[in-house]
C-alpha cells in the first residue's frame, strides 16, 4: 500500500495567535481511496486541508508528495502538485460563466472557450456530471455551483481532491449524485478527502476515516471496521464524569413555545424546517447537533435577528398571557417587555464590539436606557467592575479592548453581561468553546444560577458530556429539523450522537 501514498503530512502544526489549530498532525492520503476527515467544528479539519491547498502555511512540519518533500506556498503550487480543494464557501466569480470559472488560473493555454467546453463535456461524461458551460454563476443553484467547483479542480488534472463539507448544502438526491461521482473518481485512481461530520455519509462513501478532535489527531480506521457508534466515540471522546451541579427547579413552566418554525437563508436553502419545541422556565434546554444544523438560525430567529418564513414563537408572560415574537425586531421584542439574553456563537462579530473595552461592551444592552442623548456610563461601569471581579476576568482595565483579551475572558464578559439583567429567557451558543476547564465551570454555574432563578435557558453546545450533565432536556437538531427531544438525565451520549448524525429514516418532528 505504501506505493499508493499520494500525500503525507508529518508533524503539522499551525497556530493562530495563541490558538493551536493543528497540533502535530500526521496523516497519509492514498490514491484510489476516499478518506473521510471527521471531527466536530473547530477540530482543525479545514485548517489542515487549507495547508494542503496553499491557503495557509504550517508553522512547522513537512508535507511529502509521493515521498518527496514539497512546499505549498500558494494555491498555484497546490495545483501544480495535483491538489485541488473544493471549499465550503465556493470560490467562484459570480459574473462569470461556468466555463470562465473553470479555466481561471490555468497556465499555458489560450482562451479557447469551445475547446474548454469540449473538455468540460468530456470530464462530465466520464464522471457523470451535468454542466452548462455558458451559464453565469449568479443564475446557478447551490449544487450547480458545487459541480462547477469540482469540475474546475478536475479540469486542471487534480489527482488529490479535497472536499470541505460538500453535502452541507445539498438535498439528499444531490448528495447521492455527488457520491456516485466520487466513486467514479475513486475508480479513476484519484485520492479523495472528504471533510465531514455526517456519520451516515462517512459510512456510505469512504474507505478510511481519520479523526481529529480539538486540533489533535486521534486516529485512522478502515470504514469497513467502523460503526456509527465507534466513530462517534472517537469524534466526541469518551464520556467523562464532569460533576456539574444540576439542581432541580421546583416549578418549571412553559416560557417559550415554538411552533412550526421554518426559515430560509438568502440563497434559498432551508435552514430550519418545521421546528417545534417548548423551553421551560427553571430548566436548561440543551441543543445538540453537528455544527451548521440550524442552531445559529434557531437562536437568531427567536431573538428577532433572522427573517422567519413561517411558524410562531410565543413568549409566556408571568401572568400567563403570551407575546408573539415573530415579525418583531430585536428592539420591538425588548420594548414588548420580553427580557431575553443572548450569547451568540460569534462573540466578537456579533455579541461584542472588539475594539471597545468592557464598560462599553456592557453598554451594548443598556445603551438606550434613559432619555438623555448621552449614554449612562455609570451602570455599565459598575456592571463591568462586577463582572471583572466576580467572573475573574483578566484584563488591565475595563477600557482595555476586548479583542485583545483571551478567548475565555472575552466569553466571561459576554456571558456576564447577558445574565446581568436576569432575563426570563437566556440563549447561549457554544458558551464554553475555547475556554479552559475552570472558566467553563464558572460559566456552567452561572447558567445554573439563572435556571434556579426561574429563567428558561437554552444551551447550544458541542460537548455531549456537558450537555448530558448540565441540561435538563436536550433538543437534537439534524439538518435543520428536530430529530429528537430527550431527557438529559435518562439518555446516553450514544443516543444523542446517533440522533445528531441521522439522515433519512426517522428525521424531523417530535419523538
Amino acid at each position, binding site marked *: 500500500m505504501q506505493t499508493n501514498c499520494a500525500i503525507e503530512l508529518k508533524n503539522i502544526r499551525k497556530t493562530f495567535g495563541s490558538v493551536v489549530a493543528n497540533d502535530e498532525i500526521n496523516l497519509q492520503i492514498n490514491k484510489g481511496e476516499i478518506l473521510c476527515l471527521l471531527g466536530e467544528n473547530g477540530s482543525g479539519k479545514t485548517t489542515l486541508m487549507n495547508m494542503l491547498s496553499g491557503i495557509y502555511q504550517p508553522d512547522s512540519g513537512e508535507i511529502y508528495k509521493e515521498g518527496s518533500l514539497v*512546499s505549498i506556498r500558494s494555491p498555484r503550487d497546490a495545483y*501544480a502538485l495535483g491538489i485541488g480543494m473544493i471549499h465550503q464557501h465556493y470560490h467562484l466569480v459570480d459574473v462569470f460563466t461556468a466555463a470562465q470559472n473553470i479555466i481561471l488560473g490555468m497556465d499555458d493555454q489560450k482562451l479557447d472557450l469551445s475547446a474548454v467546453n469540449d473538455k468540460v463535456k468530456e470530464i462530465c461524461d466520464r464522471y457523470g456530471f451535468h454542466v452548462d458551460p455558458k451559464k453565469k454563476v449568479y443564475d446557478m443553484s447551490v449544487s450547480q455551483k458545487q459541480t462547477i467547483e469540482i469540475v474546475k479542480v478536475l479540469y486542471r488534472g487534480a489527482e488529490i481532491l479535497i472536499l470541505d463539507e460538500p453535502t452541507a448544502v445539498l438535498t439528499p438526491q444531490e448528495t447521492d449524485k455527488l457520491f456516485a461521482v466520487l466513486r467514479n473518481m475513486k475508480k479513476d485512481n484519484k485520492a479523495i478527502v472528504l471533510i465531514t461530520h455526517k456519520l451516515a455519509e462517512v459510512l456510505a462513501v469512504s474507505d478510511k476515516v481519520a479523526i481529529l478532535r480539538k486540533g489533535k489527531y486521534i486516529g485512522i480506521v478502515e470504514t469497513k471496521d467502523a460503526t456509527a457508534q465507534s466513530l462517534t466515540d472517537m469524534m466526541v471522546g469518551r464520556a467523562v464524569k464532569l460533576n456539574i451541579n444540576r439542581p432541580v427547579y421546583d416549578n418549571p413552566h412553559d416560557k417559550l413555545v415554538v411552533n412550526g418554525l421554518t426559515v430560509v437563508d438568502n440563497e434559498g436553502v432551508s435552514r430550519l424546517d418545521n421546528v417545534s419545541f417548548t423551553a421551560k422556565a427553571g430548566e436548561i434546554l440543551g441543543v445538540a447537533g453537528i455544527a451548521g444544523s440550524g442552531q445559529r438560525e434557531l437562536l437568531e430567529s427567536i431573538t428577532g435577528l433572522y427573517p422567519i418564513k413561517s411558524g410562531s414563537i410565543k413568549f409566556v408572560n408571568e401572568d400567563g398571557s403570551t407575546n408573539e415574537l415573530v415579525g418583531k425586531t430585536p428592539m420591538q421584542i425588548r420594548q414588548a417587555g420580553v427580557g431575553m439574553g443572548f450569547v451568540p456563537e460569534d462573540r466578537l*462579530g456579533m455579541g461584542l464590539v472588539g475594539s*471597545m473595552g468592557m464598560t462599553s461592551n456592557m453598554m451594548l444592552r443598556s445603551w438606550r436606557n434613559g432619555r438623555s*442623548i*448621552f449614554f449612562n456610563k455609570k451602570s455599565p461601569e459598575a456592571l463591568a467592575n462586577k463582572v471583572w471581579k466576580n467572573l475573574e476576568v483578566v484584563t488591565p482595565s475595563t477600557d482595555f479592548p476586548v479583542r485583545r483579551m*483571551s478567548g475565555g475572558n472575552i466569553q466571561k464578559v459576554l456571558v456576564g453581561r447577558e445574565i446581568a439583567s436576569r432575563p426570563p429567557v437566556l440563549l447561549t451558543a457554544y458558551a464554553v468553546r475555547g475556554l479552559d476547564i475552570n472558566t467553563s465551570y464558572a460559566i456552567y454555574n452561572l447558567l445554573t444560577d439563572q435556571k434556579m432563578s426561574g429563567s428558561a435557558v437554552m444551551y447550544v453546545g458541542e460537548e455531549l458530556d456537558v450537555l448530558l450533565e448540565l441540561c435538563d432536556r436536550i433538543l437534537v437538531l439534524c439538518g435543520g429539523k428536530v430529530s429528537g427531544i430527550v431527557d438529559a438525565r435518562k439518555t446516553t451520549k450514544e443516543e444523542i450522537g446517533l440522533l445528531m448524525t441521522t439522515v433519512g429514516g426517522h428525521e424531523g418532528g417530535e419523538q
Partner: protein
Amino acid sequence: MSEAGKTPLIRLVKRVKGDMISPRKIWAIRIGSILFAFILGMIPILMAGSNPFQSYGIIISGALSKPGYIRQTVKRAVPLLGAALAIAPCFKMRFWNIGAEGQITMGAIFASAIAIWFQDSIPALPLLTLMMLAGIAGGALWAFIPGFFKAKYNTNETLFTLMMNYIAIGIVRWLQGGPWEGRPGTQIIPMFKDNARLPNVFGIYCGWIIVLILVVVVHIYMNFTKHGYEVAVIGDSINTARYAGMNVGWVMMRTMLFSGAICGCVGWMLVSGANGTLNADVAGGVGFTAITVAWLSQLNSFAMIIIAGILAIIGKGSTTLQTKLNVPASVADIVSGILLFCMLGCEFFINYRMVFRGKKEGKV
C-alpha cells in the same frame, strides 16, 4: 517548484492579540514616517535649486513667525479641521463619505441665501444665527441623499458622494453668474454686508473658536452620546449592531445628516467669515484634504488639530517660500502628498509583522 521544501522568503502575519507592537514603537514608526516624508520632500526643493533646510525654515517661519502669518495659517486650518471633524463619524462607521467638499459648498449656498435675502432687514445676531442654521440644513440635506440610497439600496457611497461634490459646485457657478450675480457679467456675488459677516477675534474671523468648540462637540458626540456609540458599534460590526437592536439604516442616514451638518456649518463660516461672499471655490479642496486629515488622525478629534495644523503650515509657508526663494508654491502639494503617503504606508508596519525565512516562528 525548484525551491521545493523552502518556505517563502518573507511572509506577512497580521498582528493579533498578544502580538501587538508596543505603543512606544508605534509612535516611533509614525514619527519616523513623518521625518522620512520631509526628507523625501527635499527632492523637489533641491530640484528647484534651493537649500531644503532653509526652505523648510522659510515654510515654518512663513507660517508662524508673525502674528499675521499665524492668522493666515489658522485661517487655512479652520475649514480643514472642521471638515475632518465632519468626516470622522462617517469613517468611524466605515461609510466612505468623500462628499465633504459638496456638503460644505451646499451649506455655503444655503447660508448665503439667507445673507442675500435678509441682510438688509435683519440685524447681525439673528441673521448670523439664521445663516448658520441654513448652512447646517444645506450640508445635512446634501449628505442625506447619498446616505439614504446607501441605507436603502446599498448604493456605492464613495462614488455617489464624489459626484455630489461637482453638482454642488455647479450650482454655485450658476448662482454666481445668474440669480445672485452683482454686476452683470462679473460672476461675482457682492460682498455681504457687515451684519452677515462673522466678527473677528484676535484678527481672525471667529470661526476658529467655533471649530474648536466643534472639536469638543464631536469628541463628546463620538465618545459620550448614544449616537456616537451606535456609530462606533456599526463601524466595528454591523451584526453586533443588529444584535444590540440598532436600526443600522437609520443610523447611517442620521450620521450622514450630522456629518453634513458640520460641513454645512463650515460652509457657513467660509462665506460669512473667511470669504465674505460665495464663490465656486468656497470649499477649495478642503473637503478632500480633510479626508486624509481625519484618517491620519485615526478619527481622534484632538489629533486632527495637529494634522490639520501641519498641513496648514505647509500650505501657508510654501506661499512665502515662493515669494522668497521662487520655489513654486505647488511644492506644498508635493510635500503634503508625500507626507500622506508615508503616514498611510507606515500603518502597515504597525499592523503586520514580517516573518523571514529561516527564522523559527514561535511566540513573540
